[in-house]
């Protein structure tokens, strides 16, 4: 067990680290501009989709505030979007809905060139210069869907997540080309899930500087600050990415724990800690306990659709073993981190590098180091009787410059 001041120092360093994993403000703006442009194009006056009131909204990690950059700098950021259509013709099948969106995109010279191969459920647009790609998920929604979403996000009580469910297409399904009854299509609930996650994060854990009144928003607004739970999920995902990129686990990459499982278990385990390190430690220690066992079958239920099991692919693969391997490694890495206390910031960085990657750990220490100098320059750095620097202590550290170079 480490002391409270040590937990605070870890939290500070881990916050800098998680910030390195996040989208930057300029990326956020570019991505927003891009998806708004797609939305506008789909809804233009001459668009065949116009009668169905098409709109585009982000879902997934971009909406949850849990984006982690890919390990390899050259890889793209992956942005998930929902394309909502209302009141489509009764005779439309999934094929019709999917291709109505696809055809509209292809009718633009610009978007036609950016389209990747058709996906199972999505159309993917590749933004080559900007280093991200967007998965557009065509969906059928109820009338005035987005008003329903907005009200749902802002109301504090009486939540029926099923009211936000959407119908989506899947071109591997047997009924893809003929099922006209929309109630038999696959359902998904990205906004219901997002509301559940963001409400869980907000109810409990404000980070300093984060306005307590910040309403959770179905449309993400840029913020450099995040809730503690968002930071934990970022760190967990990154730890998983590094582990399954390592030589020991590379061959098992296809079976790594999926992000929705990590996010769901973390949220269910989160115990309202305000301290990032404590939250991470607690979740690392206990998240596996939240996996249910229903008559021998492992379940990670979708919190907004209890009939859906996120772990449904566990039985026929090594996924369960990989999940266990990951949680075990996570716990043992955190033990190593705690064992490094008292051995210096360099010993700590070694463990951080193993857990989250060398490059991001270097960048983290750079940010941390610069913040320490700023703190002293602002007159906020104090020193205690043990020579320990921080916000407490009898003495203020006066202005000075390190000098030297060697004299012989």
């Amino acid at each position: 067990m480490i002391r409270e001041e040590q937990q605070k120092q870890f939290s500070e360093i881990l916050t800098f680290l998680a910030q390195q994993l996040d989208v930057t403000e300029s990326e956020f703006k570019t991505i927003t501009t891009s998806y708004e442009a797609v939305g506008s194009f789909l809804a233009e006056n001459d668009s065949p989709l116009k009668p169905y009131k098409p709109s585009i909204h982000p879902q997934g990690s971009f909406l949850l505030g849990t984006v982690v950059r890919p390990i390899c700098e050259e890889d793209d950021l992956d942005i998930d979007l929902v394309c909502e259509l209302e009141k489509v013709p009764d005779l439309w099948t999934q094929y019709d809905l999917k291709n109505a969106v696809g055809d509209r995109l292809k009718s633009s010279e610009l978007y036609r060139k950016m389209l990747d191969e058709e996906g199972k459920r999505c159309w993917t647009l590749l933004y080559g210069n900007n280093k991200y790609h967007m998965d557009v998920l065509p969906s059928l929604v109820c009338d005035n869907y987005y008003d329903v979403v907005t009200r749902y996000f802002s109301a504090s009580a009486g939540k029926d997540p099923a009211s936000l469910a959407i119908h989506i297409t899947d071109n591997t399904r047997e009924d893809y080309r003929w099922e006209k009854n929309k109630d038999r299509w696959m359902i998904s609930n990205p906004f219901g899930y997002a509301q559940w996650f963001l409400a869980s994060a907000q109810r409990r854990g404000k980070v300093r500087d984060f306005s307590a009144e910040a309403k959770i928003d179905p449309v993400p607004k840029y913020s450099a600050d995040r809730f503690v739970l968002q930071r934990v999920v970022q760190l967990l995902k990154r730890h998983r990415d590094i582990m399954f990129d390592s030589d020991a686990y590379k061959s098992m990459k296809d079976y790594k724990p999926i992000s929705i499982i990590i996010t769901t278990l973390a949220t269910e385990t989160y115990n309202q800690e305000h301290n990032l390190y404590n939250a991470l430690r607690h979740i690392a220690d206990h998240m596996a306990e939240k996996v249910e066992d229903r008559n021998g079958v492992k379940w990670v239920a979708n919190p907004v659709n209890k009939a859906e099991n996120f772990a449904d692919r566990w039985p026929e693969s090594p996924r369960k073993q990989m999940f266990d391997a990951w949680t075990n490694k996570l716990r043992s890495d955190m033990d190593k981190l705690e064992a490094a206390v008292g051995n210096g910031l360099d010993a700590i960085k070694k463990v951080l590098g193993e857990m989250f990657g060398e490059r991001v750990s270097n960048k983290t220490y750079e940010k941390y180091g610069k913040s320490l100098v700023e703190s002293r320059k602002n007159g906020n750095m104090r020193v205690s009787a043990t020579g320990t620097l921080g916000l407490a202590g009898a003495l203020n550290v006066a202005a000075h410059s390190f000098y030297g170079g060697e004299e012989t």
Partner: protein
Amino acid sequence: MEAKRLNPRAQIVAEIGQLKRYFPSGRVISETTDSLTWEVRLQPTVSSRVYTIKLKYKVGEYPRVFVTDPFPLDRYPGKKLLEHVYSTPKQELCLFMRSTGEWTRQKMIAKTVIPWAAEWLQFYELWLATGEWYGEGMHPQVKDKKKKDKKK
């Protein structure tokens, strides 16, 4: 309040008084009418190592600070020299610019040099982790360096 310029003995007594007040775990190793040697253990951050530093001060000269434990200090792999020291083998720290008034005889060592030593140790650990010195500071003029190189 200290007088504008204390006589050497009074200066030494005052310095020791302040050192004992702010860093009570330190100890005086030797003391004369105009000089003192003092030692203390410092832990720059709550997760850092504990270091021992030795202060040598003679009235009329600049205070000098040495890291005596660990001895030698680890270096970042590939780097032979420590950053911001007067001497790597002696581990004498370079904590302020002389002749600029950053430190003067009127400023108590306990309130200036010792906190700066703690800060040096903090940035030392970051340097040991990354090879970069984040504490800012200055390096001597190029012509001083050339003089040193010639001496070799």
